């Protein structure tokens, strides 16, 4: 008789799957000693040669943060980070020129090769302009010329503060105020770098803009700040992908992403997040506390697509403020948790304008002893007539020790709203696996097939080259090496 392959063994196999991107690049870095106070905030600002208004902006954020408490309403449990034990600045010492890849540190190029995303190949095959963020400082930017021709600004936020202060000043904190929440305040005080993108009126960005973030230095938190603006009638598809090397201690990540979509404009924001999730015992892994929010003006459209496979703890709710009449908000999400990972993620659709529409498709996949929660708010304000929302939340469970939770919140003050919510929970069963096995498909491949099928509606929303990578990540996150 064939070896009995039970769900328990399946779980065991999943546990044994090592983090495949767990390597560490040795690039010399300059790093602040641990600790946070006003002087550290000033030092960060000075290091980056920022104008005074920026320093003051950070300091106000810091003072607000000092009086705030960490939120504890999410369905996650973790040891609260010691914020004085974290170093708040690390930058590669070598700052290569940005004109050619030859000038980029070979170690860095090697890192990208390991990730299977060699910049060369990306450039050649997909026409994607990359702004690579490694330990908080941008080190390579390509396709600059194409973007320049269209008047598109795509650079690090540090550079934007120097070169386009009027734009940064106008928009930073306009969607996520400094005092919005504990982590947003912290980010506002200490953000080290991030991306800035401005698409001028009427311009359709001809390439997909892509940024790879990596946390690469033990013990440093990463505080990315991203600001995207599509002016009237503009369009851009923006991709952000993340992996991080394996670390034993927890790493804190508190990013802020702000998006402004002006009248008749559209922004598609896609992200793949694959930071180190911790080992099978639940040790290590990234704490991912992210605030992502966008505002859509008249006839504008904002679409969030996320594939979340990494991090030990995820707290993230990419949201849409549908301020303008006829604006559209979308949220497509796949969240995978395995071992002891915890994710509390979802969205907020805030309908302020008339005839605003939103769609929420959330796919949660839980394995091991993980906990996966969807938390979503749909709010319709009094003057928002004829609002429509459709929400669908599906959960897929693998094994008996994991959890899937759904927390939908609905607040409507306008009776004309049409709101639909659907939710399903299913389980990868021995029946499905046996059926696949009987057709000659091994268990590992069968799981990949079932998970990809389950996630299809969201994978289809990703740009092509990203979808392929996302599928690979789903497989890496869930497959066991079945013996």
């Amino acid at each position: 008789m064939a070896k009995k392959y039970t769900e328990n063994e399946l779980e065991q196999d999943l546990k044994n799957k090592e983090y495949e991107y767990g390597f560490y690049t040795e690039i010399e870095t300059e790093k602040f000693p641990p600790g946070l106070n006003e002087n550290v905030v000033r030092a960060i600002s000075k290091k980056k040669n920022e104008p005074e208004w920026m320093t003051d902006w950070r300091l106000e954020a810091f003072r607000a943060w000092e009086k705030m408490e960490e939120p504890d309403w999410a369905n996650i449990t973790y040891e609260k980070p010691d914020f004085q034990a974290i170093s708040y600045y690390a930058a590669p010492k070598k700052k290569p020129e940005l004109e050619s890849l030859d000038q980029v540190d070979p170690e860095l190029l090697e890192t990208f090769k390991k990730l299977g995303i060699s910049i060369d190949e990306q450039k050649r095959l997909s026409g994607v302009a990359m702004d690579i963020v490694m330990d908080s400082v941008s080190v390579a930017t390509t396709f600059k010329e194409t973007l320049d021709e269209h008047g598109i600004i795509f650079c690090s936020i540090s550079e934007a503060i120097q070169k386009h202060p009027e734009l940064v000043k106008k928009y930073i904190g306009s969607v996520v105020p400094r005092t919005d929440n504990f982590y947003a305040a912290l980010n506002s005080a200490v953000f080290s770098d991030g991306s800035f993108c401005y698409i001028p009126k009427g311009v359709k960005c001809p390439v997909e803009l892509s940024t790879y973030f990596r946390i690469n230095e033990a013990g440093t938190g990463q505080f990315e700040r991203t600001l995207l603006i599509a002016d009237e009638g503009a369009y851009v598809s923006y991709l952000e992908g993340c992996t991080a090397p394996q670390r034993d201690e927890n790493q804190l990540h508190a990013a802020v992403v702000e998006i402004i979509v002006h009248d008749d404009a559209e922004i598609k924001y896609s992200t793949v997040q694959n930071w180190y999730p911790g080992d099978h015992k639940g040790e290590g892994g990234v704490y991912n506390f992210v605030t992502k929010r966008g505002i859509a003006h008249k006839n504008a459209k904002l679409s969030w697509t996320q594939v979340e496979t990494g991090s030990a703890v995820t707290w993230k709710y990419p949201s849409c403020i549908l301020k303008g009449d006829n604006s559209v908000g979308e949220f497509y999400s796949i969240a995978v948790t395995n071992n002891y990972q915890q994710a509390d993620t979802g969205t907020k659709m805030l309908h302020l304008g008339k005839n605003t529409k939103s769609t929420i498709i959330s796919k949660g996949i839980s394995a091991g002893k993980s906990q996966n929660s969807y938390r979503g708010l749909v709010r319709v304000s009094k003057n928002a007539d004829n609002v429509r929302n459709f929400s669908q939340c599906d959960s897929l469970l693998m094994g008996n020790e994991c959890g899937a939770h759904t927390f939908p919140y609905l607040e409507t003050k306008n009776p004309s709203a049409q709101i639909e919510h659907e939710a399903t929970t299913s389980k990868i069963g021995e029946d499905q696996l046996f059926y696949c096995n009987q057709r000659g498909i091994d268990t590992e491949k069968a799981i990949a097939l079932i998970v990809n099928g389950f996630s299809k509606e969201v994978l289809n929303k990703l740009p092509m080259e990203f979808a392929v990578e996302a599928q690979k990540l789903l497989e890496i996150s869930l497959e066991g090496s079945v013996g």
Partner: protein
Amino acid sequence: MLKIKDLHAGVEGKEILKGINLEIKSGEIHAIMGPNGSGKTTLSSVIAGREDFEVTEGSMTLDGENLMELEPDERAHKGVFMSFQHPIAIPGVTTTNFIKTAINAKRKALGFDEMPAAEMLKKIREKAELLGLDRSFLSRSLNDGFSGGEKKRNEIFQMAMLEPKLAILDETDSGLDIDALKTVANGVNTLKTKDNAILVITHYQRLLDYIIPDYVHVLSDGKIVKTGGKELALELEEKGYEWIK
């Protein structure tokens, strides 16, 4: 081809098969009939390698190779196919994608390259036509929301695509109306060659009006109690299973 000797098997310590002897040669069609609870499904599951069942005694070989040492997917690579009584749904995975994955998994295991896309499409078109499946059906999620008849036709479609050495049809007639039954039977008959074999497992004889067996075995309480030609099926239908006991 398939040789089963003194096979004892059960589930959770309870013996269901109590010494099965069965030999199926290339080019033959065998039918196993029996009342509910006689062990029909256990037998098909054990041949396919389902893990819930434990073999306690006996042997089972396919072309001289010990099947019991092989995982279910490895048995499939060797040419064992089972048409499920209750085919399983896989939402989001199209029938086309599923069968493509299955065929290429088998080819990989046998050391061949993936089947070229054009060849795959041609084959899919041919076999779909044989089973009277239209193309839109193949782009629906596998068995997801399929009617009983659609599921069974899809099973035989997969059989046609995979070209197994030994096909086990487990209660393939259940849930089929007479037209669907004819289509399915016609498909199976077309696929029959002198090099493969079919094991039909059924409660009723009506499928055997269309798929004519060379041998009929009657299974009762975990043992084959009578073997005969196709006329045995008719006799059983007439007299009922009580007659055997």
